[in-house]
């Protein structure tokens, strides 16, 4: 069995490629938050307390549009509902842990750390394998806080024309590269994407993320059942 530190470092190394697009994302968040009227301290607190790019960007979008607090909070909840599914996936590997570790790991259960550690946890049965998730999450935490800080300082100096927000969908696209080779996954990807795009304006409370995800999972259920019969 590898030492805790080694597994922690492996998590850092594995998640590193995913940190590249987090840099522009964090910068953009810092710049945007100041732009819509949050103070620098409030902006920093958002990254420390919420620690979730999608949640924070949704908060800013709705806040600048003058949405009520209740709508903003429920929208953040809806966008975050995907974490329920992440938790269900990784909890299988974490069920033997003490409560204190579950409390700590929950804070680090973000998209990038989930994507990387899910692979590691599946292929590794060591008792200390969860240190991989902590390593990945901690790396992302450091990058997210420092780029938020830089974004606050840089302010409007970053040209909007660069379209750096495009790095966000590219990051998620990159996380699916292996799934594009599998037929059922491709169908699931298309169904989810279409539901999200066409439901964007019609599904209330920004719940299009979870509605699309459930449509995708339902599709996967049907397709994999048919496969077995054949």
């Amino acid at each position, binding site marked *: 069995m590898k030492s805790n530190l080694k597994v922690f470092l492996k998590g850092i190394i594995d998640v590193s490629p995913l940190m590249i697009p987090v840099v522009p994302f964090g910068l953009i968040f810092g710049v945007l938050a100041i732009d819509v009227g949050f103070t620098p301290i409030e902006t920093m607190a958002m990254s420390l307390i919420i620690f979730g790019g999608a949640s924070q960007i949704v908060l800013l979008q709705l806040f600048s549009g003058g949405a009520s607090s209740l709508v903003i909070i429920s929208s953040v909840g809806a966008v*975050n509902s995907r974490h329920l599914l992440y938790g269900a996936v990784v909890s299988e590997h974490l069920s033997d842990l003490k409560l204190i570790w579950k409390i700590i790991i929950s804070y680090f259960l973000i998209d990038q750390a989930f994507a990387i550690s899910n692979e590691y946890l599946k292929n590794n049965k060591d008792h200390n394998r969860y240190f991989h998730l902590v390593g990945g999450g901690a790396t992302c935490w450091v990058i997210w806080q420092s780029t938020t800080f830089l974004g606050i300082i840089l302010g409007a100096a970053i040209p909007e024309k660069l379209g750096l927000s495009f790095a966000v969908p590219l990051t998620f696209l990159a996380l699916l590269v292996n799934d594009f080779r599998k037929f059922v996954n491709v169908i699931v990807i298309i169904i989810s994407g279409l539901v999200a795009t066409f439901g964007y304006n019609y599904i209330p409370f920004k719940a299009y993320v979870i509605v699309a995800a459930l449509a995708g999972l339902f599709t996967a259920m049907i397709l994999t059942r048919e496969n077995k019969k054949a």
Partner: protein
Amino acid sequence: MSNWALILYCGLITYLTRFSMIALIKKEMFNDRIREILSFVPSAIFPAIIFPAIFINDIGLIEIDDNPKILAAIIAMFIGIFSRSIIATIFSGLASYWFLIFVV
């Protein structure tokens, strides 16, 4: 509601969605069928973030014509499929996007 209360509540709901499933689910609840379905979670969720970010414009409408993000994303996808590299996927997408908006 003050900005601080708003931030705290958004942080709380974000944390609770992450914590609830880790704390409430037990290993025994997973059989092979559930595992198989859960393996599709990334394929089911990430497109819900990817597609609107590419196809929906700043004012919330679907934009197909004159949208360089579509071609850039397709190029990134093919680079990703053949290279299996996360970094190559992201950079080919950004590079194509900049080429399309600044050069073409």
